[in-house]
């Protein structure tokens, strides 16, 4: 019996962060959709428009944070889903690192793009 939890590994943090990010995402995702489809219409998006928005530091930071939380939330969600399907052992470790790398790359690339839009890079 004891060996069941000897490799004690709490799932509470990832669970908790998944909820916290979700709560945050509700707000920004709604904002994002509204902004890009209702206030400005997607077909009318131009680089200039994007750049104008991105230049506002508040918008830039929100979008960056949006990206990071979404990346975390999405990647963490995929990971949790796979584990629930019974992923274990070395495959689990492999998947975990692939997802971490994918998430980091996604965020990095996204931030880089945002900085470009911002005109900072």
């Amino acid at each position, binding site marked *: 019996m004891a060996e069941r939890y000897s490799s004690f590994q709490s799932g509470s943090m990832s669970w908790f962060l998944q909820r916290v990010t979700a709560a945050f995402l509700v707000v920004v*995702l709604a904002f994002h959709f509204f902004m890009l489809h209702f206030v400005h219409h997607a077909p*009318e998006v131009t680089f200039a428009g994007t750049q104008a928005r991105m230049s506002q530091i508040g918008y830039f930071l929100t979008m960056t944070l949006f990206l990071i939380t979404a990346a975390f939330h999405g990647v963490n969600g995929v990971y949790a889903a796979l584990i629930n399907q019974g992923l274990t052992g070395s495959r689990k470790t492999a998947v975990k690192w692939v997802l971490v790398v994918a998430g980091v790359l996604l965020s990095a690339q*996204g931030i880089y793009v945002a900085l470009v839009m911002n005109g900072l890079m």
Partner: protein
Amino acid sequence: MSQSYNRGLIEDFGRWREFSAGMWAWIFHKFTGWVLIGYLFTHIAVLSTATANPGTYTATIQGLEELTIVRIGEVGLLAVAVFHILNGVRLLFVDLGVGLESQDKSFYASLIVTAVIVLASVPTFMQGAF
């Protein structure tokens, strides 16, 4: 132990008619979550055209937006996102222990509200698509 008969996985999805509301909610949430993260990757890829030069970016986005299929895809994305959000909120309430007795009703409500929002947004999304 004596021999026993393992019915394998056939029973699981072959039995979808017997799934309960909570199970459907789970399946849909999973599905929409995966679509969203998939989209996020694509989205960033598309936006990356901005790193080439501003013209490419504008051209790409507007070019894509001219495609009816992309517009339809966007409505789909909206549906997926709205459902994920609404059901996500439902799940957040469940996590807080609020309204557990009506979890099935709130799931149906999420579906209906998603449908309504999506239908209502179709004109906006399809504007100029045809």
